[in-house]
């Protein structure tokens, strides 16, 4: 079922008794127009429609880290969206463009984390345990070690690797999200795959996952 957002003038006439056609999820044109004209509803609609994508991309690229406030990063991403939505020519490309800003926010965060760690002499390899019950301990260990490896990868390779293998983007989406050519994204992904695989090969838990899958055949 399509989600419904209020029409641009619904706030002025909330109870007129008139049935109005409301913009649906397909109306990105209306959303962009609403943002351009400073309509109050548009900002809320923008957030509600795209924030789950933004949060998911940030979370999956960055992993869990005690010093990162994810709400802060989601907020930062939308602030950047607001700051630059005038550049959007094709409203249909809004989702890809927002995802691209989210990926870039994650990239900047990885870079700034590294500077921060260096400045604070903080031990970078200590990925906190994921505090949740109900997850198979082996899976949890694989998760923790995967982010340990990702933490040692160059930021741009980490981003492209996670978007491909965790987020499940195809090469075209990857190129669009990373704002690079298809050939560049292929090269970058190949480097990331090689780097991750070599490191995983040296890790006793991930090696099993990559050679035999998470489980041995029963």
């Amino acid at each position: 079922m399509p989600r419904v957002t209020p029409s641009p003038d619904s706030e002025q006439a909330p109870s007129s008794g008139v049935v109005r056609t409301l913009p649906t999820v397909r109306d990105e044109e209306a959303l962009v127009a609403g943002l351009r004209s400073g309509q109050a509803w548009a900002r809320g609609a923008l957030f509600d429609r795209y924030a789950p994508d933004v949060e998911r991309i940030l979370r999956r690229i960055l992993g869990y880290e005690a010093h990162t406030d994810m709400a802060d990063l989601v907020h930062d991403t939308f602030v950047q969206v607001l700051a630059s939505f005038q550049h959007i020519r094709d409203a249909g490309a809004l989702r890809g463009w927002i995802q691209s800003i989210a990926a870039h926010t994650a990239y900047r965060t990885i870079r700034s984390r590294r500077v921060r760690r260096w400045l604070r002499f903080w031990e970078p390899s200590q990925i906190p345990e994921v505090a949740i019950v109900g997850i198979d301990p082996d899976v949890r260990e694989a998760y923790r070690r995967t982010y340990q490896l990702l933490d040692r990868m160059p930021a741009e390779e980490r981003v492209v690797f996670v978007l491909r293998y965790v987020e499940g983007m195809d090469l075209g989406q990857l190129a669009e999200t990373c704002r690079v050519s298809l050939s560049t994204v292929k090269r970058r992904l190949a480097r990331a795959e090689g780097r991750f695989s070599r490191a995983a090969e040296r890790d006793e838990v991930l090696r099993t996952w990559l050679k035999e899958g998470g489980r041995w055949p029963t």
Partner: protein
Amino acid sequence: MADLKRLSELGRVIADVSDATRDLSTLPNARRRFLSLTTEDKAPQYRFSAKRIALAASFALACGALITAWVWPTSPAISFEVGEHRSKGSVGQWVAPTNESPLDVRFSEGSIVNVSPGGRLRITETHSDGADLLIERGTINAHVSHKGESTHWRLRAGPFEVRVTGTTFSARWNPETETFELAMIEGSVIVSGPRIPAGRAVVAGEQLIVSTQHMELRAGTTPASSASANVAVPTPTEVLPVATPAVTLSPAATSTTLPSANPVEPGAPIEATWKTLARAGKHKEAMAAAEANGFSAEIAKASPGELLTLADVARFSGKPAAAKEALIAARKRYKTKGATAFLLGKISADQLRSPGDAALWFETYLKEEPGGPLAEQALGRLLEIRKRDPGAARIVAERYLARYPMGAHAALARSLVEK
């Protein structure tokens, strides 16, 4: 390079864990903040928040520190004096008593090393935080001053190495038998060498005897905190006795069979090592350390938490039988039910390839914790095991669907019910 299909499978698992562990308050918090922005706030390309200013200040400070460290002369290496007349010592030269009296080596930062008659020591390097010592033969008694976290002393004897950060100990090296002995008076050190490649902690009150062929550890043979009992331990403020009394080391340097007045149970001192390695995620090394002293002996004295850690160490280093031993010990000795049964099921299914045992353990888990956090997974694993037997599979599938109609194995369960 890894199979890309496997990478994708791992990626999907990571995505699932990430989604399952997401903080549900993130979006409401971000939404509230975003919608509270005023029109003027909406395009802050560069925000000079307190956080940014603090970061910039930290960066400036770090740069300053780097420049200072580069320009400023580095701290000088410590110096040392030898003997009663305090002759200035030279790095690389031998220090050896010429008569029946021991010889002191006093370092400028307060540490003292006493070389017993017949012994020969070489100070191979000095730096601002300590020195490297090499026992060529004989016995030394040392008190190393702890001046902070940076204190770094290293003692070598043949193929053995002792890392010291501030402690009091006696050490002896016999090059003929290639036997190294260490008696700890205060503090702790890490010893590494041929039989202990991963390193081994030796703490106050313990005595280690190790050669290329043999290793033995004893507890209670040295006073834990005092140098007064039978050990000549120099301190920075006292004058060393002229004759060195017998140290806690064995009477004969050639002997590796010391009087076993108070032999320690195998495994006691290694505990710190395998635990430390396990905490660092070095499961293979932790397993090797635990096995070096007897895995079963470790199990025999482990607490419930340690047993689970030992089981993890064994599982992750590819020793499922050892993991099973630890988990069964936890169940028998401490009645640790539930998760141990689930893990035993996993080990049986995934590593020991024993689906019958696995099914029993998953059923056990479901009996012990029917509403437990791993119940859905246990039932799902049971379903996977039983799927080759249509009758049994159908019963499990119905159980699964009744409890988890939207669960991860629901599609498999439906397909088995509809068969």
